[in-house]
């Protein structure tokens, strides 16, 4: 396949603007997927994606398109996620492409991640093709939105496609424009092979499967290959393309997107961002690769059953292959024993990782409340970074605690300015400026501690603006504040996994709420369980979980034993989701209780 007949592009957009639905239409149009196999958001192949109706993973697919010029082109499309927590997926996908199809919802217009993604595409020097989607909606304003896009990226509004990915209106022009405007790949087809590993997953039989974009040269099935960063050599078990299922081919040439089944069983040998070349006469310089994503929030992940520690480690290792943003290291907790400190790009990411571990690896796990990374300046002048409240040194040794602050942009109809401002201030944030996008929409610029942002800020923003606001943020700088550690004692034992770092002014209020919440969440045990919140040695709130007095089944009428037994088994299963902390059974929700202390009730 000569490069002039290849086009590689990603579909990018703010969450829910219709990327995956548009991908469906393109798959149909090119007859890549048989009618009977077609289903909505086909590329969202993970159960989790289908259940939640949201894309989590970027996924690539190869299509053959017969263009109006009579020629057939190989088109590689990568559908990307729109959620802010998965921007890293987008940036990696873009590096495998020459163009980006920017989808904008005609009823919503430009939103926070529309911009983020545009900047990512511009950084990579990609050709951007904007399309206005969902023009079938009654609330659609295609002309206004096209104008917004013209203002944003300078493409004349009248040249911007207006489509409905759902009904198919205008979709037939999309690939035509891709063929026309996206430049073909321009690698050195005859040079030493270099392929960028932009994603991967683990297969029990074929080892690590690297998803690659061949930049220069050719990879063929019989070549011995080499990963340039780890120096691992391998003979591929298989190479192929995504059709969208994995489809073996003999070779992948410059400009093509596909996969290499490396056969490697040691996962560390094949990293996303590495370059694959040939073992002999290989390239000298690797491709630039990727910067590792910077996790924003950290949480402990522990097996509910201590015996599953090794399974959890294996699972994290394998999951990391398919989620390059995941970072983790072993951690121990007095309360929870052996587990891992895991870094996430946001709370949604954390939730997804948790679910994937449970579903794909069949583990019962428990996550502690998320924390940010604090900088602690000690009295002796030394500085340390901690990502868990448990690591905080003794109060007396601390000179000051510094926390990360974020720059925040909120895109919103101007009617919500007031309520948003109240919310931001309640979360210790400060206003920077408010910028008018047009007569009715504004971008509000704020600064706010990340620790406040991760605690239900997004949900509350969505609820006070009826879903109209969108949000983007970047790390700003570390800043000192009067922060203290709030300890929680259950049955007179401090539970490290329940500790949190809070502003001194909020300690009392949060301590009380937390104790009340824990009292509700911790089930009655065979003895009374005191719960206390304390700052330093001072107890600021306490409550008791009364002892369980009665846990008896009624008579088995007429010998209906099976039902009684099922009932007991069900109760037992419920108990399995609890963690023994000392001699107290604590449910998973208790560890997440820290996240919902700001409710107004």
């Amino acid at each position, binding site marked *: 396949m000569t490069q002039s007949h290849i086009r590689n592009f990603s579909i990018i957009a703010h969450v829910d603007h219709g990327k995956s639905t548009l991908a469906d239409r393109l798959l149909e149009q090119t007859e890549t997927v048989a009618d009977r196999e077609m289903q909505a958001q086909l590329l969202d192949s993970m159960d989790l994606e289908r259940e939640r109706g949201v894309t989590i993973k970027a996924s690539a697919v190869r299509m053959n398109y017969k263009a109006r010029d009579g020629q057939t082109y190989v088109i590689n499309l990568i559908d990307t996620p729109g959620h802010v927590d998965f921007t890293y997926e987008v940036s990696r996908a873009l590096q495998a492409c020459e163009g980006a199809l920017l989808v904008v919802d005609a009823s919503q217009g430009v939103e926070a991640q529309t911009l983020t993604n545009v900047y990512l595409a511009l950084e990579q020097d990609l050709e951007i093709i904007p399309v206005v989607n969902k023009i079938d909606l009654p609330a659609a304003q295609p002309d206004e939105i096209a104008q917004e896009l013209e203002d944003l990226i300078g493409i004349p509004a009248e040249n911007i496609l207006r489509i409905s990915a759902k009904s198919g209106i205008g979709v037939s022009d999309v690939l035509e424009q891709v063929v026309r405007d996206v430049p073909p790949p321009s690698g050195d087809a005859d040079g030493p092979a270099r392929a960028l590993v932009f994603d991967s997953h683990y297969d029990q039989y074929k080892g690590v499967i690297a998803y690659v974009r061949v930049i220069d040269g050719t990879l063929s099935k019989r070549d011995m290959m080499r990963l340039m960063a780890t120096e691992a050599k391998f003979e591929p078990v298989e190479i192929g393309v995504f059709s969208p299922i994995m489809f073996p081919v003999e070779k992948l040439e410059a400009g093509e997107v596909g996969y290499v089944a490396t056969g490697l069983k040691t996962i560390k040998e094949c990293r996303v961002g590495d370059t694959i070349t040939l073992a002999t006469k290989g390239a000298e310089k690797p491709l630039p690769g990727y910067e590792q994503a910077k996790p924003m929030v950290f949480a402990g992940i522990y097996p509910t059953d201590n015996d599953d520690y090794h399974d959890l480690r294996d699972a994290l290792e394998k999951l990391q292959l398919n989620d390059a943003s995941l970072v983790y290291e072993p951690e121990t907790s007095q309360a929870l024993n052996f587990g891992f400190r895991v870094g996430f790009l946001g709370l949604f990411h954390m939730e997804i990782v948790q679910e994937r571990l449970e579903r794909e690896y069949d583990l019962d796990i428990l996550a502690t409340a998320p924390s940010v990374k604090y900088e602690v300046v000690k009295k002796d002048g030394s500085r340390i970074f901690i990502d868990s409240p448990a690591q905080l040194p003794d109060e007396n040794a601390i000179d000051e605690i510094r926390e990360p602050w974020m720059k925040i942009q909120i895109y919103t109809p101007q009617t919500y300015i007031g309520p948003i401002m109240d919310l931001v201030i309640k979360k210790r944030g400060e206003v920077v400026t408010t910028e008018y996008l047009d007569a009715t929409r504004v971008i509000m610029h704020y600064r706010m501690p990340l620790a406040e942002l991760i605690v239900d800020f997004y949900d509350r923003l969505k609820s006070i603006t009826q879903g109209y606001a969108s949000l983007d943020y970047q790390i700003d700088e570390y800043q000192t504040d009067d922060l203290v550690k709030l300890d929680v004692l259950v049955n007179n034992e401090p539970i490290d996994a329940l500790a949190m770092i809070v502003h001194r002014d909020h300690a009392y209020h949060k301590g009380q709420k937390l104790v009340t919440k824990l009292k509700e969440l911790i089930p009655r045990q065979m003895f009374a369980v005191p719960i206390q919140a304390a700052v330093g040695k001072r107890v600021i709130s306490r409550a008791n979980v009364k002892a369980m007095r*009665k846990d*008896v089944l009624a008579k088995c009428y007429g010998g209906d034993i099976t039902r009684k037994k099922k009932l007991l088994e069900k109760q037992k299963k419920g108990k399995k989701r609890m963690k023994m902390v000392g001699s107290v059974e604590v449910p998973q929700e208790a560890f997440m209780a820290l996240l919902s202390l700001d409710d107004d009730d």
Partner: protein
Amino acid sequence: MPSMTHIQHLTIPDEPVALYLHVPFCRSICTYCAFNTYADSDDLYQPYIDALCMELKILGQSRPNTQLKTIFFGGGTPSVLTPQQFEQIFEAINRAFETSLLVETTLESNPNDLSEPYLRDLRAVGFDRISIGVQSANQSELDLYGRRHNFDEAVSSFAAARRAGFDNINLDLIYGAPDQPLSAWETTLTRVLDLNPEHFSLYNLELKGGTDITKRVETGTLPSPDDDLAADMYDLATDMLGQHDYDQYEISNWSKPGRQSEHNLQYWRNLPYLGLGPGAHGFANGIRYTVVRLPKRYIDRLTSPEKQYAYPHTPATAKAVPVDYATDMSETIMMGMRMLHEGINRERFLARFGVDMVDHFSEIIEKHRAYGLLAVDDQRVHLTQQGRFLSNAVIRDFI
């Protein structure tokens, strides 16, 4: 938990079986009731009895000479049937089974049905034990439960039963109703103790899905019952019945010495019982099974059945599951724990499962001994006084 996935042959002792006959009819449905029972179905009584007799006949044919240990008519309200109808059933029982070892024949009943002549007839057809659904001595509670009798009627039915010659009488009581104060429960206990029956069964009111009372709690027109208060009531009953020389031989059953319910002991010892009638459950020949629930379907299935059925199957069997080794073991423990003195007999356990229970579950048993919930001696493993309240917490660990 030790792994018990392998299936072994069960060595369930070849003991006499208990016979449970379900009568799925009531004159009216109580507000808390979730049993398989139907009102306004008088026209089905006779066809049902014919079907029941057919079911008995089939079981008699598929396993001749089965010895019966006990007979229990439950419901529903078995006392809606006439003495003649019982006579017909007993004839079928006697044709199908051996009754030389029979020790107990019980009828569950509603106070309204128990006239003295009726009771005399019941004695005559073969009943030697009667269970009366008294439930409460307080009219407001009886109203709440939708019972069709008042307490005075319950007292007269009791007296009539005595006069008719019943010297083994159980009273059913319910505690833990929404809004029920401890003092009301004390009144009930005081008044039923005056009657001096041989046996008491006490039920904590359960809010079963779909019942009237549950709906009222869900919609907020009734408060939800208070668990702590129910525990207090249970305590009070334990004290008061104990003072009157009733022995709490099972979690919710008390009796005068030697007056335990033999029929229920059979369940708790996990020994075989046949369940007949719509919705009945049975356990025989290593199989747990249920009978179809709807009386009409039950009758249909048994109207001209084919010839041969493998015991304990009948044409009315809805579901039958062979019990494997592990299940049998956990069920033996689950049921056995309910018997407060007898507990689980170690020797019988060893004979049945080939392992000593105390070795097999050493960790779990140790844990609950440490909590003071379990006691172990040479013969048995059983709940302590304290353990009675938390039996679920203990049993859960074994299953």
